């Protein structure tokens, strides 16, 4: 199945959810409406001609721009057809939430926790949205562009010498 055929298939299955489609050096990226991400995930997983059954990664991006500041990117793979697909969701700064896809791909669990930990993007419906890397009492989101490289003084306590 070529990228053009995948695009065609998506446009027939979920026409209203697709905001744009890009192709760069053979990689297909589809930008999805935020509210529809779970539905699109279900469709591309269950449709036998697509069968994107493996979640490779879920990650956040801080574009640091007004309006839709964040992006969440889903890299998925079809074991049956040996094809990659990238889904993208744009998120406004004032409401950094995306519905969880752990109901579709359970493997997204820790990836979404990581994205919450690093970018402060919440995933409503996630079964266990705790921080993954940083201590639980930590209050900041280190991979946001406005977080200083050397951290915020006294935000990470050390044992007394």
């Amino acid at each position: 199945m070529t990228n053009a055929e995948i695009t065609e298939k998506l446009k027939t299955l979920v026409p209203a959810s697709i905001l744009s489609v890009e192709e760069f050096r053979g990689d297909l990226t589809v930008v999805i409406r935020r509210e529809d991400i779970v539905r699109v995930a279900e469709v591309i997983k269950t449709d036998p001609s697509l069968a994107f059954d493996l979640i490779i990664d879920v990650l956040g991006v801080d574009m640091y721009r007004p309006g839709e500041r964040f992006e969440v990117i889903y890299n998925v793979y079809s074991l049956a057809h040996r094809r990659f697909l990238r889904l993208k969701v744009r998120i406004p700064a004032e409401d950094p939430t995306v519905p969880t896809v752990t109901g579709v791909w359970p493997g997204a669990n820790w990836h979404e926790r990581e994205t919450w930990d690093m970018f402060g993007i919440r995933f409503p419906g996630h079964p266990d949205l705790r921080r993954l890397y940083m201590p639980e009492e930590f209050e900041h989101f280190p991979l946001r562009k406005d977080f200083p490289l050397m951290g915020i003084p006294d935000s990470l306590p050390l044992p007394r010498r």
Partner: protein
Amino acid sequence: MALENLQQEGFLLTRLDEVIKWARKNSLWPMPMGISCCAIEMMATASPRFDIARFGSEVMRFTPRQCDVMLVAGTVTYKMAKVVRKIYDQMPDPKWVISMGACASSGGMFRSYPVVQGIDQFMPVDVYVAGCPPRPENLLHALLDLQKKIQGEPQLGGRKAGTAEEGHASATTVQSA
């Protein structure tokens, strides 16, 4: 004391302190706090090729209760610092610390928010070892320096003996070979 005395009398005279220090320095049991790549060099130091047993420190114990010297070999993050400190606190006195490699000593190349920029921010250090990672010879040199320190021999700059806890300025640094 002359040697002929020993032959005649059958004993040596010395200070108790000196004997205790001599015994201590020659059987320093390490706590292998191997938390990243420096640990590989630490393991090599224990291998037959370099053979840390030559200096009485081959008994790596994975319980702090039986250890004398902690080898902090690797990058210490803020999250890990609590663990390292807790294990250090569980070691019985007297105890010493060797900070092995650039990361443990200064944060190394990880100049960023999760990495402690030197373990001396939360625990005392007796000997710092430079290198990324240090070669096994370098770690052995640090061990020998620590032995000198325990015996109370003057080291570089003639610093005072004792553990780093007793005198914070008494730590020493091993240069790269």
